[in-house]
């Protein structure tokens, strides 16, 4: 072929630095301390911050499996050498099950509909009791957590098995599993978002809410994926298997889903703003009040306008340090987005942020980092025996 690619392929076994290991364990330790202090001192703050952090990191893990699945379904060649990165992100999925179970302890603090006294006096919530009740929620959470665990085991498991056997049939099998996962994911993730975030304000509803959450999920997962790709490259673990051309293509994805997020966020806002129906506008009224207006506007600027313009030029998507800054910005804004979905329901007119929010975020990020480190220590960073790997090795972005 064209000879535009370096032929020196180099793949090392990944070994995390001591600093990274210490950091992630320290994160978990701070998180556990924060959790215990919160349990004793301030349960209200603890559970809201727990919910935000849990949902945020769950999105990253699930997003990894979603990316893997679309590559499998599309039978993509270019992405085979980076697919293991998104597969690594799914190593968090078992924690979702544990996290959901722990969350059940905070249901009464978080959800008005979980308190019989609140429901009794409110006909609007009473009408939703058939869906919004603790028993059914537990069933839904279990189905979601076990379902993603099952599909994750199948899809990522097949890919890992191929590393040793080289069996091409595993690639074909994964197409079917991935289609199943996408169907399961689209339904269950919508309900998961409705249950965990939308029902915090049980009188309010938005039919686009599930897609809104999905757009943030995919945007942030792509940003996270780019960060790991660049990290692995910088550590010298991978050389030649993926190049700046692959990073460029994932960055295009990131830009596209930055626009997609804005599109969905605006669609939700404009229809509610235009129709001006009280039971729909309450959501935005809470978020236009006092300090929350600044957070709402920051989403517009830092989650859409700035990343969009900053990712628009070709050079921006091929410049590693610029891309790193943008990915970190998007990841921070995704946290702010979920925080913005949760907190105004509890703290009208004033913004609260502090030790609990930070420690819960560190708890889940620490767990996420350590599960991923274990995954990459155990498995190869590139799916070396994928039958389409040769396509990825000659992948080249033409202008």
């Amino acid at each position, binding site marked *: 072929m*064209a*000879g535009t690619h370096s032929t020196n392929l180099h793949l090392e076994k990944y070994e995390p630095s001591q600093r990274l290991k210490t950091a992630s364990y320290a994160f978990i330790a701070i998180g556990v301390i924060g959790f215990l202090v919160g349990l004793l001192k301030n349960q209200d703050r603890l559970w809201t911050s727990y919910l935000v952090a849990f949902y945020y990191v769950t999105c990253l893990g699930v997003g990894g499996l979603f990316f893997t699945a679309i590559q499998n379904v599309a039978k993509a060649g270019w992405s085979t050498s980076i697919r293991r990165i998104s597969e690594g992100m799914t190593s968090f999925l078992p924690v979702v099950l544990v996290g959901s179970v722990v969350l059940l302890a905070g249901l009464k603090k978080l959800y008005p509909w979980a308190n019989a006294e609140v429901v009794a006096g409110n006909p609007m919530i009473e009408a939703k009791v058939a869906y919004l009740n603790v028993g059914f929620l537990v069933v839904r959470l279990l189905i979601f957590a076990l379902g993603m665990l099952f599909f994750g085991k199948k899809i990522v498991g097949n890919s890992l098995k191929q590393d040793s056997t080289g069996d091409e049939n595993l690639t074909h099998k994964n197409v079917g599993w991935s289609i199943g996962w996408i169907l399961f994911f689209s339904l269950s993730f919508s309900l998961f978002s409705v249950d965990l975030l939308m029902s915090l304000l049980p009188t309010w509803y938005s039919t686009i809410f599930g897609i809104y959450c999905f757009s943030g999920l995919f945007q942030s997962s792509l940003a996270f994926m780019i960060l790991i790709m660049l990290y692995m490259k910088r550590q010298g673990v991978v050389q030649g298997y993926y190049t700046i051309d692959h990073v460029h293509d994932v960055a295009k994805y990131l830009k596209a889903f930055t626009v997609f997020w804005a599109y969905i966020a605006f669609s939700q806002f404009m229809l509610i703003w*235009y129709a001006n129906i009280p039971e729909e506008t309450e959501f935005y009224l809470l978020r236009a009040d006092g300090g929350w207006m600044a957070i709402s506007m920051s989403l517009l600027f830092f989650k859409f306008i700035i990343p969009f313009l900053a990712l628009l030029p070709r050079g921006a998507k091929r410049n590693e340090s610029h891309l790193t800054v943008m990915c970190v910005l998007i990841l921070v804004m995704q946290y702010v987005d979920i925080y913005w979905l949760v907190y105004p329901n509890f703290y009208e007119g004033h913004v609260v942020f502090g030790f609990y929010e930070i420690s819960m975020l560190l708890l889940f990020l620490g767990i996420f980092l350590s599960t991923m480190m274990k995954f990459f220590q155990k498995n190869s960073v590139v799916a070396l025996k994928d039958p389409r790997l040769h396509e990825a090795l000659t992948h080249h972005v033409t202008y």
Partner: protein
Amino acid sequence: MATIYKPGMAAIFETEEAILKAAHKVKEMGFKKFDAITPYPVHGMEEACGIQRSWIPYVAFVMGVFGCSSGWLLTWWTSAVNWPLNIGGKPFHSLPAFIPIMFELTILFSALSSVAALFYACGLPRVNPPIIHPDLTCHKFAIFIPRDDVGYDEGKIEGMFQALGASAIKRAEF
């Protein structure tokens, strides 16, 4: 049509490798206006021919910004200046209501102008261009050097094409 086809020299090659090597060589020899004709996109051809990045994205961006601002102007002038209508008690100048139109005009202007720019940049429409070799749309490759290129010298070019392993060399129009 208005397009004038230029006379020059053409060489036919049988393989992708040969045409890439030839394109590299022709560029090295200092030719600027030559063209490589292939039946399908060949990887690495942009570098081989020394083709610079297209300027069309800049047209798309500028026209997109223009479309966006003209959408704003249009909606502002029609709903707040020329014929103000009270819609649900909202302000006359209500940006959220204007955004869909601004968005659509951004897309419309940048899409149409990039197509127009593409036509201009490629010299389209090229109806009924001269045929250098009928197999060029199927499995053969060609390099064409027009007569007005720098350092055009038929004897020298023929020698170079022969050294590159051309299967046929001819005077042609393209």
